[in-house]
Each structure stands twice: as C-alpha cells, then as structure tokens.
C-alpha cells in the first residue's frame, strides 16, 4: 500500500519525541488536570492504574472491556463515574447522564447493552426531593433505553466530603460474533465520521455555571446511542472504531485513537458541525469546541469505500441527522491529528492539556 501522508511526501522526521515526565509518586498530588480527559489523565491511567491492576482485558484500552463468556459469545463490560456540577442542567441531570454514559461506553464497543448497576455516594444534607428527581430521571432513561438497573449500592458521607451526589454506573452487554471494534483498528485511508454537533453538553454546563444567560439556553445532548449504533451495524459498512467523545472532546478522543492505532489524522475544519449558540459561548469563554464534552455523539472510523453508505445510515437516525465525514486517517509515525483550517492553513489538533472545563460529567 502506498504511503499516505497529509502532505503527500514522506521524509525523515525532525520532530522530537515527546518525553513524558514520570509521575512523581513521592511528592506529586492529584490535580484537576488528572481528571480532565487529556494527556495527564492518560498518564495517570497507564502509569498508576494499569501498572498495578493491569491484565489482558484492561490492556485493550477501549471504553469497555470485551470478555469471554462461558457458552457462546462475548461480553462487554464498562463503568463510568459521574460527578457533574450542577446536578441539574438544561437537557438533563446527573441521573440520566449516568445511564446514558455507561450505555454508550458499552454500545461503542459494538455490543448490545443488557444491564446496568449503579452505586451512589450521597452527601449528608442532599434534599430528598433532589434525589427523587435524579432517580426518577435515571429510571426514565433506563426504561426508554430498554436497559434496566439491576443492582446497586448507596453510601452516605459527611457534609463537605462530596458534592451532593456522585453516581457510578456499570454496564454489561453482549457482542455479536465477528464484531471487533477497537481504538487500535484505524488504518490509513479510512474515513472519520461524526454523528452531530460538537460541544453541546459541555457548553450547556458551562453556560449554566457561568450564568451566561443566553435567550434560548444551550441544551445538553445527553442521549443513549445504542439505537444509532445498531442502525450503523445494520447498514453493512466495515466499521473499525466507534467512540463517544465525552470529556476532553473530539480532539482528545481522536488523539487516543491515533495513538492506539499508530496512525495520523487530517480533519477538515469546514465540515465540523457546531451549533451557533455553542460557538458563541465558546468564543465568549475562550474555549475550543473540539475540546468540549459531548454526551450524545459518536465518532466512527470506517473503510474509505463504505463512508457514504455509513453516512447515509447515520443521517437516517434522529440522533445523527447532522452527521458528517470530517476527515481521513493517514500514515504518520508521530500519530499527529492535524486539521486544515477554514482559511486553508494547517494546524495540529493536540491532546487537551490541563483542564479546559470544570466537572461536566
């Protein structure tokens, strides 16, 4: 296969290999960047969690783990902790978010989500009315998705030791034979598709926190994506990777995939869907929609020849009416994600560094 690079030429690189400073386990402390979804978090996961807990399933490094099941088929298992503040926001609340987030982590592995478990950490003093509203919203979300919460746990901590309520959900699903989607499958030439507008969830939270007071509020896109995933599977396209770009946004998700698959990517800024209100709020706060969280969007990488077919299938689903082909996968020893700007220049779309947003999911 001919070498494909964004510039069309191949030459030896002079870019320096990033030296990653080891975690300072003696004097270092957890800081907010370790939870922001960017490079610092990736390092914490690989150098601390995976180092101690490492096994073949964890090493898959995707949103969920594919597990052998006795009898036929394979299981997918995923877990997600939710600490969003405020607990209620336009378009949703921590309850439905906790259901959607974990369903999506199972779904983007190509699996059909079956069951959820939920663990609650409640802060002393949380109004029961709030808790009731949150759990009812969870129930509605689970019922609509057809994925019941089958077990759970509750702990209460003293006032000041948590922020209202934290919810951790774990999901289990089954994987059909022959499906193996993973962040390590992208290949040069593949097309990159995005299911809809960028940054709706993160900006809904930010606008709420900063009381930006837009005439019509920005609404979170929180949604369960397994239905969309099923219709993508049904169209028969050769899908290699699906991810939901949550914390850290699309930029961080694509960088993760580029690293896992050892490839580069080139995006077209003109093709990126962003709602005008989200764009305006980002301008105001100096944020880049590429790094803002989504909770009801997915990015898919598929074989080049199947891109149009997959796009048509996605657009036919109500959750992906704004789907677009946003770029291509290239060969690149540096695993850079680059973008042709709307002006025709070229820039990197790097990992999120530090913390772009406060607690959003």
């Amino acid at each position: 296969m001919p070498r494909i690079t964004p510039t069309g030429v191949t030459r030896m690189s002079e870019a320096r290999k990033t030296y990653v400073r080891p975690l300072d386990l003696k004097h270092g402390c957890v800081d907010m960047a370790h939870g922001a979804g960017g490079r610092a978090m990736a390092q914490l996961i690989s150098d601390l969690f995976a180092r101690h807990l490492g096994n073949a399933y964890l090493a898959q490094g995707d949103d969920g783990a594919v597990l052998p099941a006795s009898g036929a088929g394979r299981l997918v298992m995923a877990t997600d902790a939710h600490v969003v503040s405020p607990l209620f926001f336009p378009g949703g609340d921590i309850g439905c978010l906790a259901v959607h987030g974990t369903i999506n982590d199972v779904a983007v592995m190509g699996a059909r989500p079956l069951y959820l478990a939920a663990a609650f950490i409640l802060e002393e003093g949380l109004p029961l009315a709030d808790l009731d509203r949150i759990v009812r919203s969870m129930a509605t979300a689970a019922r609509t998705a057809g994925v019941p919460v089958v077990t759970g746990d509750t702990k209460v901590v003293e006032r000041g030791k948590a922020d209202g309520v934290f919810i951790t959900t774990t999901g289990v699903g089954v994987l059909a034979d022959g499906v193996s989607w993973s962040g390590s499958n992208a290949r040069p030439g593949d097309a990159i598709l995005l299911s809809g507008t960028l940054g709706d969830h993160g900006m809904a939270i930010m606008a709420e926190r900063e009381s930006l007071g837009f005439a019509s509020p920005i609404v979170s896109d929180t949604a369960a994506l397994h239905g969309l995933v099923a219709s993508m599977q049904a169209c028969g396209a050769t899908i290699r990777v699906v991810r939901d770009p949550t914390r850290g946004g699309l930029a961080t998700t694509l960088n993760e995939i580029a690293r896992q698959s050892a490839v580069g990517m080139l995006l077209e800024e003109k093709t990126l869907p962003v709602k005008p209100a989200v764009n305006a709020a980002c301008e105001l706060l100096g944020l880049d929609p590429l790094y803002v969280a989504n909770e009801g969007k997915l990015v898919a990488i598929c074989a080049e020849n199947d891109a149009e077919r997959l796009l048509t299938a996605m657009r036919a689903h109500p959750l992906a009416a704004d789907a677009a082909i946003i770029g291509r996968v290239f060969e690149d020893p540096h695993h850079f994600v680059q973008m042709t700007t709307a002006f025709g220049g070229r820039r990197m779309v790097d990992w999120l560094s530090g913390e772009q947003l406060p607690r959003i999911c």
Partner: protein
Amino acid sequence: MKYIDEFRDGSLAQKIAAGIGREADHGRPYHFMEFCGGHTHAISRYGLADLLPDNVRMIHGPGCPVCVLPIGRVDQAIRLALEQDVTVYTYGDCLRVPASGGLSLLKARARGADIRMVYSCADALALAQQRPDRQVVFFAIGFETTTPPTAVVIRQAAALRLTNFSVLCCHVLTPPAIAGILDSPEVRDGQTVPLDGFIGPAHVSTIIGSRPYEPLAEKYRKPVVIAGFEPLDVLQAIRMLVRQVNEGRAEVENEFSRAVDRDGNRKAQALVAEVFALRDHFEWRGLNVLADSALRIRSRFAEFDAENRFPVDYVAVPDHPACECGDILRGVKQPQACRIFGTVCTPENPVGSCMVSSEGACAAHYTYGRHKDV
C-alpha cells in the same frame, strides 16, 4: 452568532493573502512582530502563516500576560496562600505558571493552599463579601485591558469598607514593553532580530487608543498597525504593514477602527489613573527591569494593596537555566530552538511561562504547529 462568522470567511482570507503575495517585494524579506498573544494564538490556530508568502515572516512578541510574569511574582501569590493563609483568586491561566521550588499555584493548591480560579475580579470581590471571616487576595495580572476592572473592584471594596479584600497588583503596560523590545541589543543591531513593524494590540488599544504608539513609531521608525484578534484582521494588518514598508512610511495605522480610536476610552483611563500609579521599576520575564512599565495601587487605596497588607516582598528569582523564554519573548529565538522544547517542557509540565497559556509562543507552537517540525 453572525458577527463572528463574518470574520471567519475562508475565501476572503485567501484573497487578502493573495494580495499580500502580490504586493510584497520578492527581493526583500519582511519581519513583523505581533505583540499580543491573542494575535499569536489566531495565527497558530487558523494556520495563517501557511497563507503568507515565504518572505513575510511573523515573530511572536511578549504580549501574553502570564508569559511576562516573572517567577518572583507567582512566588508572592503562593506565599500569600501558603504562609499567610489567605484565599487567592486569580485568572485560570495563572494557575500553571511555574514558580520557585517546582511549585505553581495549581501545585500549591494540591498541597492545601486555598487558591481558586475566577473569570472576573468582580467574582473575587463577591466571594470576599460572602466570606467576611477570611482574608481574600485577588492576584491581578494583565495589560491595560484587565486594569480598569481591577480599578473598579478596588473602588467598590473601598466604598463597601471591606477589610478582608486586597489586590496583588501585577498589571503591566504595553508601550514600555514595545520600547523595551526595540531597545534590546538584538533588535538594535538590526540583524539578530530584524524587525520591520508591529501588529499592535486589539483589546489594549480599545482602552489606551492608538495615540500612545505614535512616539514609538516615530522614534524607532517602525510602522504599527493596530488589529483585531480575528484571523481576517491579522491578515489585513499584515497587508497594511507591507504597504507601509514598501512606501517607506512608519506610521500608526488602525485596522481595528470598529473598536479603537485615537484617544481610547477616556473614562476607563480616568478610573485607572484614580486607583493606580506608575511603579518606578518592574521586572518582566525576558525584558528585565523596565522603568515606568507597570502599575501599583495608589497610597489612597493602600489598605487594598496586598503587598502593603501582608509581608510578601518581591524577590527576584532567575529562570530555569535551560529556559529560553526570555529570548523567545524578545523574538530572538523560536520555540523549537529551546533545548527542552517538547521534551522536558510541554503544556502538561511547563518549565517556562511561554508554555503555559495558549497565547504563549511555545504553547502555541507545541499545540498547533508541531507538525511543521516533521
């Protein structure tokens, strides 16, 4: 928002770029410095350098508030929080600026210091009112744009007779910094840093107007074009600079006339003058100590001056030995020339201040331009 999109028109950008290509004399190079980090960011984020002809080069300037903050100033804020047990509020970008002893405000916070980020100094004042039992300090940084809001909160604090609010004032001024660059030996020798003109600040100029740049343009014979932060503004300003150079002019021109006039915002200037006075000396990162280049709080408002209220004298601290931030801020070196760029010094672990904010030259190159080193 329609307003933004008007300034993001790709085809118009191509047209202006083509105009620059036609008008630039191919027989000579053009070197322009964009003073502001906002312009640096726009150039990097939108890939504007790719649109310019090879002989038109942009040099990043020092106009990024956190970049020019010397270590000793961040140390003061950290000492306030750790030793004086006060709550320090500041803008987000300040949190990661490297300070002495491997600390930054963020790392000090992880060690227990009460340090918080705010989007405006008014928030800091409101929070001080909510916590009357706690001493609260606003760590104020920035050029002329952020100065009037700080003046407002100091006046409000005085009117409210707050006894738990003060300001660590590190506000700096643009024109002396431009003069500082033009006086640096590397620019004066005319070779190390060839400079044919400046893109002047956008937001700063809405406050101070275009007049303060006139003596600089005249004395140093360098054209200045004040430009907005939108990518089209930057391209248009470059075209205007090329024309001035071609015609042998060294004038102050205003591309950003939708927001800037010659006199600026008189009301804001009066407010600033009421609350602040010139510091005799102020140390800048990269530009050393410059006279009359920064502001202090007037003695009338001394009780709201954190340097007056708490024993936190300024102590100058040399930069990390490998750090080239000083040279980068004066345009002497490019980020890639720093030995530790992208290896030891990355946005996650900034060693120098230019790697902290997205307006800093090193961070901008690391985040948006690293593919060019390939």
